């Protein structure tokens, strides 16, 4: 997830993320969620308890408050810092789930990840989120976006391809019936609404792809 296209075209090229780039990246991820808080609230009000937007906004506003210190750290420490902030501030199930995603990326990625290392780290993070949520794809959750985005990235897709895969995957949660999370209490009535966690995952992946695609 955190790798630019290799400048010289080689798959194993290492791409250092300088402080400015880390700042733009974290800022873009945070703003992608904060700016869509009303949309996330509306989605979660339809099939959940309506707090996903406010929870995610609270978490990422806390991340932005630590932006200076987070960008001064190595990439692994920076990712772990984002993860711990989300765990502490988001509440809800999405706090530990997104927290686990960033914490695992922080554990797995070196400071200057190659594309292969980034794909491997993304895969490990995906597995960790599945374990944390005792869930898998097809249950109308964020995993229904994270897994297709991971597959698109691992298959060599460029930023635009991964972005499109994530956004399309979120749309595909609309006809799904939820079998995990608060929406599962609604049974058949969860059908016809996009999953809010799938949408927030797609927003964040889109922000990462935009950052790397534009450079």
């Amino acid at each position, binding site marked *: 997830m955190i790798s630019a296209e290799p400048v010289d075209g080689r798959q194993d090229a290492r791409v250092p993320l300088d402080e400015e780039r880390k700042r733009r990246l974290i800022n873009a991820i945070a703003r992608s969620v904060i700016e869509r808080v009303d949309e996330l609230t509306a989605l979660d009000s339809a099939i959940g*308890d309506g*707090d996903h937007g*406010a*929870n995610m906004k*609270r978490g990422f506003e806390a991340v932005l408050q630590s932006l200076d210190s987070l960008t001064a750290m190595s990439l692994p420490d920076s990712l772990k810092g984002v993860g711990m902030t989300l*765990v*502490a*501030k988001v*509440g*809800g*199930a*999405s*706090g*530990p*789930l997104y*927290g*686990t995603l960033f914490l695992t990326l922080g554990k797995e990625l070196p400071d200057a990840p190659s594309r292969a290392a980034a794909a491997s780290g993304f895969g490990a993070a995906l597995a960790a989120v599945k374990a*944390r*949520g005792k869930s898998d794809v097809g249950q109308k959750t964020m995993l229904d976006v994270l897994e297709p985005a991971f597959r698109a990235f691992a298959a060599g897709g460029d930023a635009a391809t991964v972005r499109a895969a994530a956004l399309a995957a979120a749309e595909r949660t609309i006809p799904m019936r939820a079998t995990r*999370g*608060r929406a599962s209490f609604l049974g058949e009535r969860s059908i016809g609404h996009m999953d809010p966690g799938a949408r927030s995952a797609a927003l964040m992946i889109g922000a990462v792809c935009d950052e790397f695609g534009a450079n």
Partner: protein
Amino acid sequence: MANVGIVIVSHSPKVAEGAAEMVRQMVGDDVPLAWTGGNSGGGLGTSFEAITDAIQRAWSDAGVAILVDLGGAETNSEMAIESLPAPKRKKVVVCNAPIVEGAVIAATEASGGSDLETVRRVAEELSP
């Protein structure tokens, strides 16, 4: 050997406090007990940090059994357990049981001196 401690984690501070009040009525002060409810913004939800703090308050060398209500309460509790130092981590469990009935039954069992696994099993026998 000290009795197993009980932690109650609800999205609602009122539910958590009320369940704790029912536990106290059953077992008095024989069991370490702590409750937490609400997110870090003061709304309905759960807080990883508040759960970590509640585990410390109800700490017993015999272990701690946590009773939770909905999804995030469980996920945040599991995250809190995994962030404990290794020797403590093995002594905290989340019970798969209804929060109010589970807390009362678990505390009653704990007040008789049962070990952590027994406390959890008895509470979980209530589960559908």
